[in-house]
């Protein structure tokens, strides 16, 4: 099977298959593999049938995602379909409205197959903190998929959908994409509306696509990007239709992003840098602040915003009582409450927002001399299940290389570049200046990254 948006539309063009056939082959595959992988939390066959029956006449130009089966991370509100954020607090929650991203996907003709597993409330980088059990990495089911969009990345890697939408606050799209060998694009903060996405850290939350090809990431971004009056931080700028025409550009790299990176990943990085040079790009070493520094900044900002965002779950208007919060959410809420409290606000929250300015200035300075930055996405390839519980902030350690760009609101893309000695995918990331998603997509397309179908 292994459809991409383009190959599926070609099959529709040539009338090789019907949308019902495609959808039912996916639901069958999910029924067969999901008990092992636990990528989906909800697959609503009735809702799928209804979407298929309501599709307009086939027109891939007017409806760029017509008949494309898509998986949705379970923190997007979907009208009439369970939305749990993988937490027992929202176990029985059924939203009364669609998130803007969901509305746009539906309007573009996409078929929402179901809702994918994640770290509860998107707190983590393992998908092990889900209240509904961990998701397994299809490359090796004894390993984690990464997270928090772990179910989304696995749904793409194991071909349980054509493409997925996830969300990233600091790493939650790029890191699982890297560990599962697929493509993950985190757009510029504000490029894609957060309306109807269960909020984690509102100042960095960024919805985005996880896909098998760069072309698919571009197609989905085109559909979901754009100004939304319902999100006050939504960018008014339109997404550029195509990238700039300059064929070769300057790509920077910083040795600070290689500290503590495993030898296999480091080797992959060097190979990628050479490949960029062979394609005619100019490579330039730059000096970026140590990403280690961002762990403290991100921890403070994220916990503070979490404590405020999760205060709304009172178990009165909807959802279950707060006593059902898992341990990870409790820790985050408590530390957030602390850093925002009288007497400590200046030393923690305000201080973190000031260091954030320094991180932004560091990138601004770098982007005066380079057009894009290459770095590994994660310090290691996929780790064994159970590892995440050993660290008080596992997520921050695994996301160290994506945190600075997330804190700064920059766009970034992770793509697979090969395998390590354990036959696990290695991911690299490219960063570009604010609003330059098209540059990232064009540059990544030069590699024509191959997403291998597993299982």
């Amino acid at each position: 099977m292994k459809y991409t948006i383009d190959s599926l539309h070609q099959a529709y063009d040539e009338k090789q298959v019907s949308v019902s056939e495609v959808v039912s082959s996916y639901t069958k595959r999910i029924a067969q593999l999901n008990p092992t992988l636990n990528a989906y939390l909800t697959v609503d066959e009735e809702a799928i049938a209804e979407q298929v029956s309501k599709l307009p006449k086939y027109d891939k130009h007017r409806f760029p995602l017509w008949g494309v089966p898509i998986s949705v991370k379970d923190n997007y509100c979907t009208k009439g379909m369970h939305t749990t954020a993988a937490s027992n607090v929202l176990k029985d929650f059924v939203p009364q409205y669609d998130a803007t991203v969901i509305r746009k996907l539906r309007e573009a003709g996409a078929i929402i197959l179901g809702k994918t597993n994640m770290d509860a409330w998107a707190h983590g980088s393992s998908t092990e903190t889900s209240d509904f059990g961990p998701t397994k990495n299809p490359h090796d089911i004894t390993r984690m998929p990464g997270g928090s969009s772990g179910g989304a990345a696995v749904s793409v890697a194991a071909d349980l959908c054509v493409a997925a939408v996830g969300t990233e606050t600091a790493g939650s799209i790029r890191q699982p994409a890297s560990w599962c060998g697929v493509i993950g694009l985190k757009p510029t903060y504000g490029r894609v509306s957060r309306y109807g996405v269960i909020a984690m850290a509102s100042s960095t939350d960024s919805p985005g696509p996880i896909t098998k090809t760069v072309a698919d990431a571009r197609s989905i971004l085109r559909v979901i990007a754009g100004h939304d009056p319902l999100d006050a931080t939504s960018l008014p700028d339109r997404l550029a239709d195509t990238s700039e025409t300059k064929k070769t550009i300057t790509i920077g790299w910083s040795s600070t992003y290689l500290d503590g990176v495993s030898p296999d990943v480091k080797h992959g990085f060097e190979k990628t840098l050479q490949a960029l040079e062979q394609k005619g790009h100019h490579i330039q070493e730059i000096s970026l602040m140590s990403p280690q520094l961002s762990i403290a900044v991100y921890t403070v900002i994220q916990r503070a915003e979490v404590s405020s965002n999760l205060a709304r779950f009172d178990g009165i208007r909807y959802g279950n009582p707060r006593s059902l919060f898992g341990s990870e959410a409790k820790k985050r809420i408590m530390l957030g409450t602390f850093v925002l409290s009288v007497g400590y606000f200046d030393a923690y929250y305000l201080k973190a927002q000031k260091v954030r300015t320094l991180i932004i200035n560091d990138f601004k300075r770098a982007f005066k001399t380079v057009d894009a930055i290459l770095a590994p996405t994660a310090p290691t390839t996929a780790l064994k299940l159970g590892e995440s519980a050993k660290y008080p902030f596992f997520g921050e350690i695994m996301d160290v290389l994506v945190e600075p760009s997330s804190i700064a609101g920059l766009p970034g893309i992770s793509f697979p570049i090969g395998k390590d000695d354990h036959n696990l995918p290695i991911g690299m990331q490219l960063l570009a200046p604010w609003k330059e998603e098209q540059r990232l997509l064009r540059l990544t397309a030069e590699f024509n990254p191959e997403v291998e179908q597993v299982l």
Partner: protein
Amino acid sequence: MATKNVKKDFSKHDIDYLVELSKLTVTESEEATITSQLSQTLEAVNTMEAIDTSQVEPTYQTNGLENQFQTADMPHTQLTQKEALSGAPKTDGTHFITTGNTFTS
């Protein structure tokens, strides 16, 4: 000017207070783990103190948008009373029923 207090670790008393402020519940064994893990987190977070930010303004929002107000043409969907109450565990048909505020200290 506000004082810049840096905390070294959390005591059981601190954690009890944060639990109450956050309206959470923790078991005794959970509390011990949380106290030790949050103290470790605090240690990592305190590394920020070494960075000189005396000449730096904070950034709360990264894309520069300011004062975004609701406009007249903003899409507006209103939930019906039935829809608004549909997820509530306890209602009288027209209102949510709360358990009241139990903040004690």
